[in-house]
């Protein structure tokens, strides 16, 4: 109950400030209570004096931590593409809008649901200055995470309390699945005789064709005249010889109640796709919930991982995955189909 309440207060927008005791703070409060009881019990005025000092330390701690956060701003981070389970370093820009006093011991980090974070620390922030610090985020699994804003926190001056302020800035963070290294090394089965394959779009120097601009494409490859005439951005594709395209066919349907094996399959599919693309191959992805047409390069990696980040885990049913995936993969005939099953 207490944890739920604490969590509610922490997540709620109604409370702009969050205050939590540190270990030292809890000890001081316990000592103060003991001192108060001793003073009242004995009537010893010097104990009252020491009690007054301990209360003063608590009050000043609360007031000064509030003052320490005033005028401190953190710019929200954007464009994060973290991988589940791997720490992601994000650079934060912290600015002091104050005119007079410096701020000390500032910590900052993005507040993202379920993600664990190591804050970026700034020891001394002079008035009117902007500094950069790096924080670290770890997301437990792939998916779309809600970022509520940026947290600025301090334990200054005495480390008795941690006061935090959330600068609201709502956005989402797409977390990629882990990239599991494929078990094989060397040439893939079914890729023998690559040289005899027909030309496809990819890395090369010869003109292959044009197509509509897709997310992840290099904007330098946009053909502006043609785009102007067609009223949509169009990019040029080069011909890549000797490259056989491959379809990573992911069965995202659970075989048992446990979804972990599907998640494992997604991670293997992600690792395989990235491995193949890094080898310079044209790779497409097909799943029971859609797919990504074949492509090459960094853009294709982004497209596949974006897709895999949110691909759903389907419940177990009688439908054959092969028919669905095959029909999708039929869009690019001749491509090799690499099955990834739970």
């Amino acid at each position: 109950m207490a944890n739920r309440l604490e969590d509610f207060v922490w997540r709620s927008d109604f409370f702009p400030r969050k205050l939590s005791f540190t270990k030292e703070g809890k000890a001081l409060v316990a000592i103060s209570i003991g001192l108060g009881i001793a003073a009242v019990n004995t009537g010893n005025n010097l104990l009252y004096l020491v009690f007054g000092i301990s209360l003063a330390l608590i009050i000043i701690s609360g007031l000064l931590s509030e003052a320490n956060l005033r005028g401190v701003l953190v710019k929200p981070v954007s464009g994060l593409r973290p991988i589940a389970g791997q720490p992601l370093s994000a650079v934060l820009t912290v600015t002091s809008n104050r005119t007079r006093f410096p701020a000390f011991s500032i910590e900052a980090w993005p507040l993202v649901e379920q993600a664990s974070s190591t804050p970026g620390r700034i020891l001394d922030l002079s008035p009117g200055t902007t500094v950069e610090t790096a924080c670290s985020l770890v997301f437990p699994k792939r998916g779309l995470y809600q970022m509520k804003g940026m947290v600025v926190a301090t334990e200054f001056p005495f480390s008795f309390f941690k006061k935090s302020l959330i600068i609201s800035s709502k956005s989402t963070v797409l977390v990629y699945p882990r990239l599991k290294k494929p078990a094989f090394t060397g040439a893939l089965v079914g890729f023998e005789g690559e040289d005899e394959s027909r030309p496809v779009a990819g890395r090369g120097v010869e003109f292959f064709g044009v197509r509509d601009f897709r997310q992840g494409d290099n904007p330098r490859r946009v053909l502006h005249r043609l785009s102007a005439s067609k009223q949509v951005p169009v990019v040029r594709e080069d011909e890549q010889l000797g490259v056989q395209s491959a379809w990573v066919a992911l069965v995202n349907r659970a075989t048992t109640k446990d979804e972990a094996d599907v998640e494992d399959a997604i991670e293997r599919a992600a690792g395989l796709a990235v491995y193949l693309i890094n080898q310079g191959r044209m790779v497409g992805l097909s799943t029971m919930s859609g797919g990504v047409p074949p492509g090459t390069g960094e853009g294709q990696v982004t497209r596949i991982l974006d897709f895999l980040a949110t691909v759903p885990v389907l419940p177990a049913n009688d439908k054959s995955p092969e028919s669905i995936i095959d029909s999708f993969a039929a869009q690019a005939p001749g491509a090799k189909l690499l099955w990834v099953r739970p």
Partner: protein
Amino acid sequence: MTFDRLHRIVTLGVIACGLGALHFSGEFPIWVSLSAFLVSVAGVKLHPRFKANWVIRAAGVVTAIAGIAFLWLAISDEDYLYWAIIFAIFLGAVKSLMLRNDADFMQMYALTFLHVMAAAVVNPGISFGVLMFPYVILLVLGLQLTNLRKGIQGQALEGAKTGDLQTERRLNLALARRDLIHGGFISVTVGVTLSVFLISLVFFFIFPRLGFGFFAQQSRRGMAMTGFSDQVNLGDFGNIAEDLQVVMRVKSPNAQLPLRMRGQSLDFYDGKSWKKTTHRRRPMVVDSDGIARVGRGLDPLEGVVAQEIYLEPLAGSPRVLFGMSTPVAYQRPPNALEALRPKKWRFFRDLAGDVVLTGPDAVSIVYTAYSEVSDFNPQALRVAGNHYDERLLELYTELPPLNPLVEQLASDVVAGQNNPYDIAQAIVSFFHKEFSYSLNSSHGDYDPLADFLLNNREGHCEYFASGMVILLRQLGIPARIVNGFAGGIHNEYGDYFALRKSDAHSWVEVYFPDNGWVTFDPTPPAFLTSRASPGLLASLMEAMDAVQLAWYRWVVEYNLEKQISFLSALFSLKKDNENSFTGANSLTRNDIRQLWYRLKALPWGYFGLALLLIPPLGIVFIRLLRTPKKKKLGDQRDPAVKAYNQLRRELKSKGYIKAPTETQLDFAKRVGAENPELYDHLMTTTWAYLEAVFNPKA
């Protein structure tokens, strides 16, 4: 100085203050606090040697063994507090060697806080108050530095392996920073320290002194003082004359230096010591004003000298009360709350007329003595005669077997004198002329008084007074020795007379029929000058004593009466009597009743409502504060901007308001379309404004 060095030195200062507060209690031998301090000093330099894990484990084992040893000592000594404090000092010393990270520093500060708490119990002296200032300043600074150290460690050790050499190096480099302590940090620290002092004092004064503590009184260790018990060995009382500790403070408009405050008389001399055989005491009747009269008459108290006396706690009970000769009445400050206390103050008077007070032990006493101070007419004393009461003669003329030469001396000294007054004066003159005052004389153990009178004619006041009493009694005149204080200094800072231990004095009272006891002082007046302190030192000591008195009155002895007195002053019920030793100006039941009515009449319902409204109003206020103000565009002093703002105000008065989605030009066009005659003016002013705002350099 590097951050690390500064932090360690500040921590050492905090430790020193805590140890000092304990040491100056006088409860512990000097080696305890000194050795702990030296270990802490060594820790500043030697801390890298105590980083190894095996050293820390060994320290844990040693501490556990020490804990058992101290427990055993406490059980065998039955002084648990004493050994618990020594164990806390030991823990602090061990910890001071092992200050590695922020948690260690925090634990060190917690231990020093424990030392201060212990000192609050065992050291009520001014030394505690004096040390609290540097302690709070250094503690605030130390806690802030610990907070920064936590940040430094967090930065340096982020994701690093513990114990890794590289990490260690990185941390050491980070701790060697010199740029963290700058003007901004110091100004924040000063502000924080002042705030801590202020809030501590506010809490100290307003925290209600109710609860169990109310029934007790603020006790302090009683000052050891011979001379005021029922038996005093000859020579003991005079030997305390070199101690400058203040014993009592006197306020009286009629007092003059040298001040003579009479304590108690002793009547029986056995050749080596003085005894009080009249120690059977009876409780005195206290009237409605709290006045206890020594004798009959003097009602009302007119023509008497009132002296308000602050008497330091003296060891032993009951407590002898002092007053100028001849005390006729005593009074404790009337206080309605006094009646609630279980241990009440009660006056007792013995057969010799000396008054004592019983009550709580080891506490200071504030009372008023009323004395009849009259210059006796020598002529009246000469003719007073020698018809003494038999009981009086029995008590005050008794003598031990004397050396025949002493008997001869008495006859020789008073030869030619024919009345008790002249005889007494002749003896006084004899002592003044033939004897000298000395604190270093020795008279042996056999018959010290005979040695003083016949051989070594040097001695302190007790020998003089005893010699005179013996000589008078030898001649059949009732006389007694009186112990008290004579001399003193006027404290300019506190406007009172201070009597120190060194002012302890013995003199003689001689009985004259119809006149009572008259004071004679056979000690040569040189004794007064021998106790004077050098100018600067005396001035310093006076200032110190005034501070000490304020400390005792307003901190150590601050109580519910003084608190209520403050509240009464706040409600203008009465004025707080600053000039009185009690501070609280005679709190009566009526005062408390009046205060209660005033408090009850306050609009508590509104206060409650306000308390309920404060949180929501506070939130609204904070939200309002947080709502960013719309920033005005451009330089507001620019004529174009001024003209445009003026135009907008005029248009607003005519009902033309710019929509948030409209640009300034759209707005001007819209208004211009409705008012073609204004179109040019509107467009010109708007363009000028836009130029001024977005292209000011042009």
